[in-house]
């Protein structure tokens, strides 16, 4: 218990530190991209340090949902289900952030908010829909089946992502391809800015996950107590 408390404090401190640091690196430390390099909206590109970490955390969170779902189906322990649920909720929040910040940049850079022909955009959108559906499923099913069915759908949903990727490889992607061209076009400052952002968001995710799990556990404890005294 004591260790848990300490761990939480450490995560909180690291989160605050890295979030502050990432604000600094994103806004001040990293250089602006130049119009000569083919960017039409250099200032708007700064949103990249917010957009990419948000997208990263959403994929991480959905990955966690997948793993926890598999674990839950294996031995039906309630804790796996709680983690999966908490992670799915946070994932949806960060996925929403990524989906909102993307078009803000897109409007400035491309001139349009949304491009359906862009694979990454479309797949992130589909992923977002899948996990919204996941949360709705959890809301609609009564408690004894909820965890099991949600776990099954969590697995199907996550497995669907690589499948969607395969089927859309026929389209041309317009998305700035960060990973593939990192050696060539990304300067080290940009890399550091991005890394700090990713680390900050990952700690934020960890912190939020722990809090959400604690709330969920408290809620089920209250349910148990209610049952014990014969309430509803």
């Amino acid at each position, binding site marked *: 218990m004591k260790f848990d408390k300490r761990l939480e404090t450490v995560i909180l401190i690291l989160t605050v530190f890295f979030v502050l640091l990432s604000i600094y690196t994103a806004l001040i430390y990293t250089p602006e991209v130049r119009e000569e390099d083919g960017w039409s909206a250099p200032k708007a590109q700064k949103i990249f340090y917010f957009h990419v970490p948000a997208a990263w955390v959403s994929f991480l969170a959905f990955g966690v949902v997948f793993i926890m779902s598999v674990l839950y*189906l294996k031995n039906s322990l309630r804790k796996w289900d709680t983690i999966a649920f908490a992670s799915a909720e946070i994932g949806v929040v960060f996925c929403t952030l990524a989906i909102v910040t993307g078009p803000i940049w897109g409007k400035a850079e491309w001139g349009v908010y949304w491009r359906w022909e862009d694979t990454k955009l*479309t*797949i992130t959108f*589909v992923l977002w*829909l*899948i996990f919204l*559906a996941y949360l*709705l*499923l959890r809301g*609609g*099913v*009564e408690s004894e*089946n909820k965890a*099991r*069915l949600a*776990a*099954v*759908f969590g*697995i*199907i*949903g996550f*497995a*669907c992502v690589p*499948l*969607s990727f*395969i*089927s*859309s490889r*026929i389209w041309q992607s317009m998305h700035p391809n960060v990973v593939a061209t990192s050696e060539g076009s990304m300067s080290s400052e940009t890399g550091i800015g991005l890394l700090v952002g990713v680390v900050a968001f990952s700690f934020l995710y960890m912190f939020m996950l722990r809090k959400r799990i604690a709330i969920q556990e408290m809620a089920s404890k209250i349910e148990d107590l209610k049952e014990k005294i014969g309430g509803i």
Partner: protein
Amino acid sequence: MSQGLAIAIKDIKTEFRTKEMVFSMLVFSLFVMVAFYFAFYFYSLSSEALEPLVSPILWVTFFFAGMFGLLTSFSKEKDRGSLEGLMLCPMDRSAIYFGKVLSNYFLILLVDIFALIFFVLFFSYDFNGNLLPVLVVVFLGTFCFVVSGTLISGIAVNAQDIRGVLIPILLIPIILLTVLMPSVNATSKALEGDIIDAIPELRILGVFAVIYIAIAYLLFDFVLEE
């Protein structure tokens, strides 16, 4: 497999005693066609202008009519309490899944074929001898839709109050890129007369059908567990 076949035959038999589901699916696909016709009425589409709209209209009709079929495939059993009976049978749980896939496939294909006829009638469309390739795509695309849809239907049936809404909500994001897109693309290519061009899409559909069956085979036991 023979157990699955038995379940499928039982389903089709009970369905054709009342015909209520097939009939409402047929009427629904008729309505969708009429709705499309009047939606485009203002432009009084010529046959060239209609060309790019053919496969989207067809697949939207197939999917929405098909979802009706998926809706009742488990909920009927659940409401009558016969799902427990099926689960008590000394056989693999996945046999129930395969049985449901077969019966759903049969019924939805039937509706698809009628929808094609309605389409030809209302839009006075001429397939120009491309009907066979289109049918190949329809058979494969519908199969892919049914294997994923039956699994989702098994999940959604547990949500008592909102199961009607839940099937489309759970199913559409999953099939959007894996079934809907390749099917529509392949149908458009087949309509142009070059089925060879559509082979990448058909291959994708085939692979996804196998993957969805594998996922269902692995996970269906958990869906039905009580």
